[in-house]
């Protein structure tokens, strides 16, 4: 039995497979498909201080080997999450990474403070990179100074492991990540969706009411793997890889590139049990080579 455990800062995960924010609801909706506690952990749908209804329809459309989404961070809000969802997650023994989102520094701080008092939250993931909201958090993620600032501010109010989720559109990705590392981030998550657009040529207008949406799915995997490689080369803290992972082979690609853990996003729509299958597939790959997951991390770089 090879070890599947990985450590992200002080946080131990039973395996490197997490589910991605916005693609796994609040972690409860999948209970009917498999025991979610068997995953390394889950990232919640992005939480804001107040509930958000999200963008008008249409919000999604399919593209070659990918999809565009402009959900607009619809979510129940941090209060309802703590009241209705978190207790059930605790009960089920699920490792929870709370993905939080705000449009101002103060709101980011308020969110982190609000969660600090709650039990059963194992890490905070700052979404500074959502492409789908006007004056959205994405500015934070594209600018080195702003990213540093939001990381530092949240760092001050939480003792929990702090992850920062990168925007692939940051002109200076590595610079932004380094700044977050310097301000005390425990891990960098990469990548969020890439802004795209699809046009309905019969109706002669964008398919999404929001015009643009975030591109996700297998189509973006090569871009994500490259960014994870670049980040892992530049950073001391762990990188959590994400982008188009559909099979165990894909997950292993990210581990070999230098990711310490990975997140499964769009693949859960295609197959609700995708994350569960990937856990098994990665274990099998390790068994065949009698390598632990930690021995896989960054191995393609040697």
């Amino acid at each position, binding site marked *: 039995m090879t070890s599947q455990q990985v450590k992200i800062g002080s946080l131990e995960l039973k395996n490197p497979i997490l589910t991605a924010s916005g693609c796994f609801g609040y972690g409860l909706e999948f209970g009917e498909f498999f025991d979610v506690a068997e995953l390394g952990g889950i990232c919640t749908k992005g939480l804001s201080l107040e509930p958000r209804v*999200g963008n008008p329809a249409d919000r999604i459309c399919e593209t070659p080997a990918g999809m565009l989404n402009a959900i607009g961070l619809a979510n129940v809000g941090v209060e309802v999450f703590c009241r209705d969802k978190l207790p059930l997650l605790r009960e089920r023994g699920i490792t929870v990474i709370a993905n939080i989102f705000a449009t101002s520094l103060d709101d980011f701080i308020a969110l982190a403070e609000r969660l600090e008092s709650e039990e059963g939250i194992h890490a905070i993931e700052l979404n500074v990179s959502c492409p789908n909201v006007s004056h959205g958090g994405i500015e934070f993620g594209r600018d080195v100074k702003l990213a540093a600032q939001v990381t530092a501010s949240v760092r001050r109010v939480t003792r929990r492991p702090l992850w920062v989720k990168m925007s692939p559109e940051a002109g200076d990705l590595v610079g932004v990540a380094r700044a977050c590392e310097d301000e005390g981030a425990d891990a960098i998550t990469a990548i969020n969706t890439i802004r795209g657009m699809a046009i309905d040529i019969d109706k002669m207008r964008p398919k999404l009411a929001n015009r643009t949406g975030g591109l996700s*799915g297998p189509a973006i995997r090569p871009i994500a793997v490259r960014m994870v490689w670049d980040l892992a080369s530049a950073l001391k803290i762990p990188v959590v890889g994400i982008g188009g992972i559909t099979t165990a082979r894909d997950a292993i690609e990210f581990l070999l590139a230098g990711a310490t853990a990975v997140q499964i996003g769009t693949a859960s*729509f295609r197959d609700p049990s995708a994350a569960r299958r990937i856990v098994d597939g990665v274990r099998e790959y390790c068994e065949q080579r009698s390598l632990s997951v930690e021995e896989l991390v960054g191995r393609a770089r040697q």
Partner: protein
Amino acid sequence: MHAGHQQPTSHRHVDAPLLRRESIGDSYHVLTFDLPSGKLARPGQFTMVRSDDWGHAPLLPRPMSYLSGGTTPSMLVKVCGEGTLRLGRAEPGDVFSLVGPLGNGWRAHDPTKRQVLVAGGVGIAPLLFLARDLITSGANPVLIYGGRSARDLPLSEDVAELCELEVTTDDGSRGHHGRVTELLSRWLRPGFEVFTCGPDRMMAKVAAMALAANVPCEVSLETPMACGFGVCLGCAVPIQAGGYLYACVDGPCMDASRIAWDRAEPLVQLAGKG
């Protein structure tokens, strides 16, 4: 948000072999699956269908209403793009991933009323399933069925054997020359309730008429869907109360009066595709 979905249930995701494919013309196909272990579907529910053979594209599973339930459930597929093209080519024995039954079926009918079922094209599927159910429970529904032309009225024979049927076609190639809504008016009286599925533009019109006439009206919505069980939040339906409901878990069947049709414009635009 969608409490109904939070008790872990099982058998909601199965790999099922196709038992047979009956083609109706070249653009409609009835697919029947063998799924002894699956959860049983109610009229108005749907399933997310995909095959691993699709590889990376088409990427997402395709939502399909149940045409019939039981352990050999069937769907009626209209070919209109990459995914339905592949479904229309499926051969017996091919294995498909079925996530379902999903969503809320049609609301229980009111035994004191007569049911008027209004179908547009492939929208017949969930209504034929409903009609069968109603008849077993002693009701006497009437079905108004419209399509572009005679070729776009799949399964109308099955309906005719089952209950009262009124047919309309845009080109007059069969039945009344015109729209279902023209035949609907005379049924919009006290003692009736409407159930409708079809192109969104048609449903919007039917809903408006029913509401104006104070007749209860239930619609089955088609929105783009990625997951089908309430996690992607892609299937938003704008509602009168403000904000959105989600077609996959709060629907697809809903009381027409809840929907903010004015804000549903892009949804209505989907009509072409329905």
